[in-house]
């Protein structure tokens, strides 16, 4: 399980050959609004707790305030992120788990972020703005 091994880097997480990071892979990652949201959030802030990201994402999808997101909806979003979207990003070396509940972007993520910036920003600017925004007393660490 690569995903829970993130704390102890293996040879697999060694620096990635830029040629490996082809466009197909980047677009596969970006072909989902929840993953794009995660990436925008991680672009603004290298480290997030999953619970905070889940709450923010529900608020974004519903067009409501984070304060109005009920626990059950946040848990359902957490489940979606935890079981599929974050592992996919981990698998591609874009994100690492820092402890069980916190994720951080890796240095290998730069190419995907560069593409996201060029392709996505004009189409996705509202999503980006929302994802980048902090709420409550969430801080960088």
């Amino acid at each position, binding site marked *: *399980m690569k*995903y829970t091994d993130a704390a102890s880097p293996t040879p697999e997480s060694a620096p990635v050959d830029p040629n490996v990071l082809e466009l197909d892979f980047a677009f596969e990652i970006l072909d*989902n*609004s*929840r993953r794009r949201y995660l990436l925008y959030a991680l672009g603004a802030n290298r480290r997030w707790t999953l619970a905070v990201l889940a709450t923010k994402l*529900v608020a974004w*999808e*519903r067009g409501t305030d984070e304060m109005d997101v009920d626990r059950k909806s946040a*848990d*359902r*979003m*957490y*489940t*979606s992120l*935890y*079981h*599929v979207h974050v*592992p*996919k990003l981990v*698998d591609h070396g874009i994100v690492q788990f820092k402890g069980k509940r916190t994720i951080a972007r890796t240095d290998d993520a730069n190419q995907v972020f560069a593409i996201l910036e060029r392709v996505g920003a004009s189409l996705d600017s509202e999503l980006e703005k929302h994802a980048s925004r902090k709420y409550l007393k969430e801080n960088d660490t």
Partner: protein
Amino acid sequence: MTHDMTESQDKIMQEDTSWRVVEQRLYDRDCPDDLTTAVIEAVADAEDVDLLDVKEPPLYEIVDIGAIEDCFFGPNEGEERGNSVGSVDFEYRGLRVTVRSDGWVQVAEATAQP
């Protein structure tokens, strides 16, 4: 009831295992929750545990749930349903999960042979 994936349970999962559906729900592509959440919720209900207690293994390691979702329920929000008809089975935490193209998600547990 809890299901730990133990070796002995692994051995039960042979072809002659019979299964009893213990939980099912209709997945609605138009609701904001994705198929992943529907599957994990059904598993949590089958195990009678909290949704967030179903953590290991991450579903990503078991099955390409995004591909199933695209295949049966259309690739993206707002688009028509995928045309594929059928069902996909996979085993997760000792349970058998079935996703059908009509939207039913079923969780079954192995029953002892007579």
